[in-house]
């Protein structure tokens, strides 16, 4: 993935929104040879055209809000195939879907479930679960994170296998209902605010505000969500950022699930900490040494932000709806 370089940052406290925005708009969508559904291929072409138009029009000043929208509306073209050992009454056709990067698998796959259950007998169906190349997919991780971590450097569409039996108890949490997803999502938001504001902002909100955050995510309503979420992105005038930055760093190759530690966005001398500063502190092996060959990609929402990007800005603009920065460290792509 080519990096867009800018020599000046402009306003000291903000990185070039244009570079991040451009990176997101230039995420490459291939058109799969295997697609069968015309609707699916049309939506892919539409997305590609939109990206190209947006990229051409960045002669204008990009607003921070554009980045928020780009992040929210990111999609991953996915092909769902039923596991071959599932018992069906007739042939199960693959199902194509554009998955929202910022959502969760079990929240957006009702149509997938219905599609495959149509060809199965009731007694052969239990809890649905998903797998990619043998790895069970954790529904409680955001979709974009799963894709970046496991499949970002392979050809589109993302090929996911659907299972209805032999639920892998050791690898996956159960998801009996949408309430489970809501509880998990709200808990992540509360944890993020505990780090950012000692839970003061989220605790001051009414129950209906919490509900609005969840409904905004569930119904893909950007404005509804951000009407409340913007309060979680504020900080006291006398500070230069949040108390601590909510982040999780994932590496498919390590034993530990993720790295999460206390890390301040501002140094004692008032300088803003960058993405590079964070990595140097909590995951130094991810950084390329001075004369070394770049072994890893540091990926958020399918792009590689420059390591000089202030962490506070990343937290405000590239967090997932749960208010966490979910960062993937993956082996450097060879193309």
């Amino acid at each position, binding site marked *: 993935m080519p990096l867009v370089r800018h020599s000046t940052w402009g306003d000291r406290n903000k990185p070039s929104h244009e570079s991040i925005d451009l990176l997101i708009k230039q995420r490459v969508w291939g058109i799969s040879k295997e697609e069968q559904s015309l609707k699916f291929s049309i939506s892919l072409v539409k997305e590609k055209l939109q990206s190209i138009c947006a990229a051409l029009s960045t002669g204008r000043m990009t607003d921070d809000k554009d980045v928020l929208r780009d992040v929210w509306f990111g999609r991953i073209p996915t092909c769902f195939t039923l596991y071959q050992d599932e018992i069906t009454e007739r042939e199960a056709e693959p199902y194509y879907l554009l998955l929202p990067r910022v959502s969760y698998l079990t929240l957006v796959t009702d149509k997938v479930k219905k599609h495959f259950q149509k060809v199965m007998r009731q007694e052969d169906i239990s809890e649905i679960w998903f797998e990619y190349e043998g790895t069970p997919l954790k529904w*409680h991780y955001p979709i974009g994170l799963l894709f970046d971590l496991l499949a970002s450097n392979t050809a589109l569409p993302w090929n996911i296998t659907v299972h209805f039996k032999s639920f892998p108890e050791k690898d996956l*949490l159960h998801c009996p209902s949408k309430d489970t997803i809501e*509880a*998990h999502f*709200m*808990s*992540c938001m*509360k*944890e993020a605010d*505990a*780090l950012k504001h000692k*839970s003061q902002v989220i*605790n001051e909100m009414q129950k209906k505000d*919490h509900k609005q955050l969840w409904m905004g995510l569930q119904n893909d309503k950007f404005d509804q969500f951000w009407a409340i979420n913007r309060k979680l992105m504020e900080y006291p005038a006398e500070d230069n950022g949040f108390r*601590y930055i909510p982040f999780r760093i994932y590496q498919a190759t390590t034993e*530990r*699930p*993720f790295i*999460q*530690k*206390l*890390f*301040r966005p501002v*140094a004692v001398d008032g300088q803003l*900490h960058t993405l590079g*500063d964070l990595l140097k*502190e909590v995951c130094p092996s991810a950084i390329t040494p001075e004369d070394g060959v770049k072994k890893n990609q540091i990926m958020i929402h399918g792009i590689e932000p420059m390591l000089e990007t202030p962490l506070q800005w990343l937290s405000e603009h590239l967090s997932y709806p749960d208010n966490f920065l979910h960062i993937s460290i993956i082996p450097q792509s060879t193309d």
Partner: protein
Amino acid sequence: MAEPERPPTSLTGGPAAGEGAAELGPDPNALEPAPSAAVSPGTEEPTGDAKKKIDVLLKAVGDTPIMKTKKWAVERTRTIQGLIDFIKKFLKLVASEQLFIYVNQSFAPSPDQEVGTLYECFGSDGKLVLHYCKSQAWG
């Protein structure tokens, strides 16, 4: 202070160690001193840190039964689900009964969350305080 109880036999456990903190796991060694919870950037993690245990203080909420032993030394890699299972067995709760665990009396971490990570971020005075409840206390 009451003598700490032996952990249930289904968990591999050594003899209870230290003052008031019982072992939760196979390591019978005495309690390790816990590192400072107010971490600021710049502290290098000592090697073998992942093997060290952290102190967990369990507090009951509402009419949930209180554990006789409240302070435990727990491996960093123990998950919240592992802790829930242990508390349920210790309190002799039925497997079907729910148990919720809260951090900072504000959020319920995911069952696969490791206690070590929670301690790093939310520990204070050398321990991680966790509230447990049979019903949802803080949503």
